[in-house]
């Protein structure tokens, strides 16, 4: 019992002893680094765990004091922990720790530039490992860095040389702390040029030496420049607060850190394509090691011309006083203090930010500050930079990050990486201007905040005005080159609004861009204009000239993958569509047009995946010409032949399907748009949808089941596996009765959902072969408590011996969305 003392309860003593030993062992393996024996990724995890364990202890204080609702600063948490930590558990071996707050530490003894500093190989005088002595210079903005004759605040003097970005320098072990204009920084001693004394360079300008892939394409064959990538496409309400980095590609854990929304990651060029088709990049970690993130959430910085006011000051001027704007939560903020600062009530803030939902206020999060008629402003503080800034920049909400530009470089280090997050309050709107861009740099998305005005210079009023955040998708396609010297080229830019309405226009690369004008010459700017077909490669008799139609030579009918001959996206000014073409010879050899590959179209139009396995369809719809669905899975049963086009309007992700000529079978699978869809939603919000149902592999004798079942779901970082069960049922099974009281399944296994951080993902399930018979399968997840039962998306299907029983006599697949099985009693 709790009041028993060790002396009078021998059994209790033994129990406490083993539990304590077990607990200590698990905890020790998480928090105690052992650099001598553990491999590098493990070291990294240990470091992270150590830091977070510090934070965890502090967290008790934080949680117990939740009423304050204050965002916690990591350093504060670490300090709290350090105070509480027994001396024998405190980290050691870091004699010169640079603190970011408070007074800068006293400088170490200044080494003479002509006297080599004794050092221990691999560990410098600050206790940092430096990886075989070599580091690559990246510089503050990827532009290289000055090497000084001695560590000191950079005032333009004492420069031994400018070390270009990508240059490899040898560390010689010296390390010291020195003040810079942005606070204390570590300086590393590096080997000077031949015959010259050693030099000093700021440690945060250095990266661990890159592999042999530098420079060039990464290991996935994708050019990934060594510039900062931003974390994007993660919703601000993401419970993780940003992108989760892992020790390896495609795994759920160990998690090394969370990179905040808008945070910066720098790829090493390491890349792995996981089995689900997503690319993972290896990136540099703050501790000099590496970790991995899903590249879909990384956005390379792009150049943009931005006219605005920035650098940490409150909004200026009456013109925007009543406008809503965004605010970045900083450590120490409380909802009340924010409300008071901007003269609004807490209730107003809560209404404007429903995602807060009473939850914790997280440093770095964006919250919306509604406009207030009597809003008061603090006097401006900080440095203002007003005017065009041609830099590598990404605007995310109200944040502007400047990475590198000729104009800002001269401001370094005053405007350096450490200062790259700015509050940004556009006073003059946002201008994206061609003069900043080269063609190659125009590609890709960019987020725009503030007011966007699309102007036709021949009209007095803007054609379109929107407020951020917006996503502009810059195709970079030059529609028309300059017709004569001095004339402007026309560049296609597409703007996707917050409501997913898409405006695509052709922008003139006029100098007017820098004067807040964007010339729009396109004529198709109406958001609700239907998608217009784009001329295809070759018209076919009976089809309009705008119809997509291609004929292809017969494919290899033995291979399901060969049935699809072309799949691509095409865009015009109004929409993007996906065109899928099947070969004429798709099924000739076996005369089984019922077998065609599943075509899975992801929400992201650039992510089209074709599975190599075919499947049968269970139902047909009457309209042979055009079918529209509100959402979910559309299944189409068509007759023979092989030419058709599938077009998807980008707007609202509404599928439009048109069968052009004796179509074959096709599956269009989109994410649900809400309402009654085919998605199974569990009691805790997990969603699953069966995108590639179970099917029999009819290309083989006997009873093998096609072993790739595609399940889509909402993957979360901590979820390692989904669950599926398969029951053998009677051919004439009463589904309702069965699902109300299912017997024991014949198969119960897990399937991986890894690799997707807080996003929809596609998961592939390997099924074993099944004997002929009728089955019910459910794919989903067990809720945390058994009393809630098992839910998911399911399928009723039959496996037959195709060679003896024939085929097609029975509806092979019946989808069962939203299966909710009854609770199971504890055993």
């Amino acid at each position: 019992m709790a009041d028993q003392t060790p002396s009078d309860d021998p059994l209790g003593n033994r129990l406490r002893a083993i539990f304590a030993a077990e607990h200590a062992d698990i905890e020790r393996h998480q928090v105690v680094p052992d650099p001598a024996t553990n491999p590098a990724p493990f070291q990294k995890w240990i470091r992270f765990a150590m830091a977070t364990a510090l934070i965890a202890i502090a967290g008790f204080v934080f949680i117990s004091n939740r009423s304050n609702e204050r965002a916690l600063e990591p350093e504060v948490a670490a300090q709290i922990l350090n105070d509480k930590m027994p001396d024998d558990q405190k980290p050691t071996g870091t004699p010169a720790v640079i603190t970011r707050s408070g007074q800068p530490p006293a400088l170490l003894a200044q080494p003479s530039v002509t006297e080599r500093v004794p050092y221990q190989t691999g560990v410098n005088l600050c206790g940092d490992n430096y990886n075989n002595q070599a580091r690559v210079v990246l510089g503050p903005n990827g532009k290289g860095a000055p090497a000084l004759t001695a560590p000191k605040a950079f005032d333009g003097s004492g420069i031994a040389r400018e070390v270009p970005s990508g240059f490899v320098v040898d560390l010689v072990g010296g390390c010291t702390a020195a003040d810079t204009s942005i606070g204390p920084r570590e300086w590393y001693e590096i080997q000077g040029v031949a015959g010259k004394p050693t030099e000093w360079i700021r440690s945060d300008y250095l990266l661990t030496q890159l592999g042999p892939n530098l420079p060039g394409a990464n290991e996935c064959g994708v050019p990934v420049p060594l510039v900062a990538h931003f974390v994007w496409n993660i919703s601000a309400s993401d419970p993780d607060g940003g992108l989760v980095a892992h020790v390896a590609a495609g795994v759920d854990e160990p998690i090394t850190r969370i990179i905040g929304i808008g945070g910066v990651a720098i790829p090493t060029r390491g890349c792995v394509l996981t089995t689900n088709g997503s690319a993972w990049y290896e990136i540099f970690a703050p501790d000099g090691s590496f970790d991995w993130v899903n590249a879909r959430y990384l956005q390379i910085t792009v150049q943009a011309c931005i006219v605005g006011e920035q650098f940490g000051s409150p909004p200026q001027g009456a013109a925007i006083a009543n406008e809503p704007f965004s605010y970045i939560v900083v450590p120490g903020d409380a909802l009340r203090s924010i409300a008071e600062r901007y003269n609004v009530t807490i209730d107003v803030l809560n209404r404007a930010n429903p995602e807060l939902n009473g939850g914790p206020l997280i440093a770095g999060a964006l919250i919306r500050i509604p406009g207030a008629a009597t809003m008061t402003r603090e006097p401006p503080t900080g440095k203002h930079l007003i005017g065009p800034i041609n830099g590598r920049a990404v605007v995310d909400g109200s944040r502007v990050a400047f990475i590198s530009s000729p104009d800002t470089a001269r401001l370094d280090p005053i405007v350096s990486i450490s200062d790259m997050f700015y509050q940004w309050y556009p006073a003059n709107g946002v201008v994206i201007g061609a003069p900043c861009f080269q063609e190659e740099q125009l590609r890709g998305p960019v987020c725009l905040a503030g007011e966007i005005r699309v102007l036709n210079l021949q009209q007095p009023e803007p054609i379109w005005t929107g407020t951020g955040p917006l996503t502009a998708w810059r195709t970079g396609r030059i529609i028309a080159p300059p017709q004569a010297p001095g004339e402007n080229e026309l560049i296609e830019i597409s703007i996707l609004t917050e409501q997913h309405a898409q405006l695509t226009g052709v922008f003139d690369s006029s100098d007017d861009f820098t004067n807040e004008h964007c010339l729009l010459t396109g004529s198709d700017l109406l958001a609700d204009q239907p998608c217009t077909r784009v001329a295809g490669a070759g018209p076919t008799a009976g089809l309009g000239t705008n119809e997509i139609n291609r004929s292809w030579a017969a494919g290899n009918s033995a291979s399901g993958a060969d049935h699809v001959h072309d799949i691509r996206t095409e865009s015009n000014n109004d929409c993007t569509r996906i065109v899928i073409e099947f070969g004429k010879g798709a099924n000739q050899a076996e005369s089984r047009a019922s077998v065609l590959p599943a075509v899975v179209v992801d929400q992201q139009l650039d992510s089209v995946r074709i599975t190599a396995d075919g499947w049968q369809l269970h139902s047909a719809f009457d309209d042979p010409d055009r079918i529209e669905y509100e959402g979910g899975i559309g299944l189409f049963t068509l007759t023979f032949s092989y030419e058709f086009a599938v077009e998807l309007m980008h707007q609202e992700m509404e599928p439009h399907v048109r069968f052009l000529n004796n179509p074959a079978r096709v599956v269009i699978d989109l994410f649900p748009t809400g309402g009654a869809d085919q998605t199974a939603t569990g009691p805790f919000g997990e969603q699953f949808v069966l995108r590639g149902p179970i099917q029999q592999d009819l290309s083989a004798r006997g009873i093998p089941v096609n072993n790739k079942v595609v399940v889509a779901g909402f993957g979360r970082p901590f979820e390692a596996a989904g669950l599926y069960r398969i029951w053998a049922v009677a051919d004439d099974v009463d589904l309702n009765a069965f699902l109300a009281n299912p017997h024991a399944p014949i198969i119960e296994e897990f399937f991986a959902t890894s690799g997707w951080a807080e996003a929809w993902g596609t998961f592939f399930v390997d099924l074993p072969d099944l004997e002929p018979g009728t089955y019910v399968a459910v794919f989903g997840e067990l809720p945390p408590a058994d009393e809630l039962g098992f839910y998911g998306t399911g399928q009723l299907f039959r496996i037959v011996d195709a060679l003896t029983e024939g085929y097609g006599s029975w509806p092979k697949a019946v989808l069962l969305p939203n299966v909710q099985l009854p609770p199971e009693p504890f055993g």
Partner: protein
Amino acid sequence: MANDFERIIVSEFEIFYRSQFASLAVVAGTVASDRSAGEAIAREALAKANLQWAKVAVLDKPDAWVRRIAINLAIGQKRRSVNKVKALFKVGPTAVAIAETRRGDPAVWAAIDKLAPKQRAVIALHYLEDRPVTEIAQIINISVSATTSHLHNACIKLADMLGESHG
């Protein structure tokens, strides 16, 4: 090394996760008679907490909530005789490459493994975390008298198996 490239955003849940994991893993591992399974269950239970963090965080005892989830998962795991750990290992490496062998006297662990699942849960919550019977009853969602009975019977069994007196 000082580095300005990254900002770590510390969420309240992350703090909770790190503070709870080890104890939760021991409790779940004790119930599941499997250390690795205990860790997996602890992660899963904390994942559930993460999904509903806005609700869980405001509970009086979020640690009790997550223990109930973990214990239910651990009991369910044994019942289903599905080695989820194996599946999780298929998916990817675990958080820490710890030894499979549980620490401490193997004879005591062997004796604990022979208890009923809820008795194991009661033992772990009481002797690992020093939780009073009333709190254990809340976590396991049984009555205080049933909890007391579980604890008493478990101790009698353990004392018998280990040749110890039970004070």
